[in-house]
């Protein structure tokens, strides 16, 4: 079986909050449910923002190839896995 492609993020503390325009689409009728969904949407957006920020932060830190993904570092000089 082909290995599931997954790029590993290096976890680091983040302090940014997601911008949120409340555009999630679930529409429960009860007001308390609506509030609950909005809270959950904000939470999901915050997590999404944090993950995207980590992803691109790692890319900007490492500059090019190895370091941001969860695989052994590749030595470009001899193309062998270190």
């Amino acid at each position, binding site marked *: *079986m*082909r*290995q*599931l*492609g*997954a*790029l*590993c*993020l290096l*976890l680091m503390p983040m302090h940014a909050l*997601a*911008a*949120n*325009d409340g*555009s*999630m*689409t*679930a529409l429960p009728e009860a007001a308390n449910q609506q509030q609950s969904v909005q809270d959950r949407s904000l939470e*999901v*957006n915050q*997590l*999404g*923002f944090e*993950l*995207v*920020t980590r*992803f*691109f932060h790692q*890319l*900007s830190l*490492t*500059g*090019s*190839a190895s370091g*941001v*993904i*969860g*695989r052994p570092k590749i030595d*470009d000089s001899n193309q062998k896995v270190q």
Partner: protein
Amino acid sequence: MQRADGDFETFKTYEPIDIDEFSIRDLHASRPRPDLIVVRYQIATPDATSLKRGTIGDSEFAPRLTSFRLNPKTNQWLVLSHANLNVPIQQICNYSAPLAVEPVDKFDADPAKAKLVTSLLVRLTEEVRSAGKAIPQADGLIMAETGIVSGDGYSRSGAKGARRYQAAGSTQRRNLFLTLGEKDLVVRFETKYQSAIDGVAFTDTWQPNLATFTLDPSGQWKLASFALFNYPAVPPAGVKCRRDG
């Protein structure tokens, strides 16, 4: 991982774009499963350079569609699929690309997987790209929280946005590549079809697509994210032209 410059990357071949700084806006995240996050957003990456191609991408905001899954063993979020719709606008002069761009010509030979993927893509084609059909199926293949982006820079959530799609003629597929996990399925494929969004005709040449499916508790595969890299056949109204020289 699919980029608008044509590069397709897997876990094994991934070479990231060289990025110095970035800004994020218009982020919308959904959580089809507790351990799956789909995020569509705009991001600006000034002077981002492809080391494979020696090209520099547009510095303006451009869409991305990224899905993350939680590895239960390590409790780490991993990038499951990533669509980058930033287009290259400059070529580094005399750049000798050290990394070969490999063509995508793989089709998984496992008949069971091929059958599954084919059936999902047929549904995707029929239900997403046929006007109106996806609308009553918010709990079906196209969920309200499905993240969709297309090459015109437009992003939307599934059930509402699917109304914008219209398709004419048959859809042809080729160069299918899939990676199947226990609860996730990522499919990269190329399509060729006639289409329009809100009356704007798109190119009818081969263009890549990147779809992520998730297995729900009832055992049904549902679409979690879908990125189309097709683009308008003619520049949309409002796009400024620039003369050479």
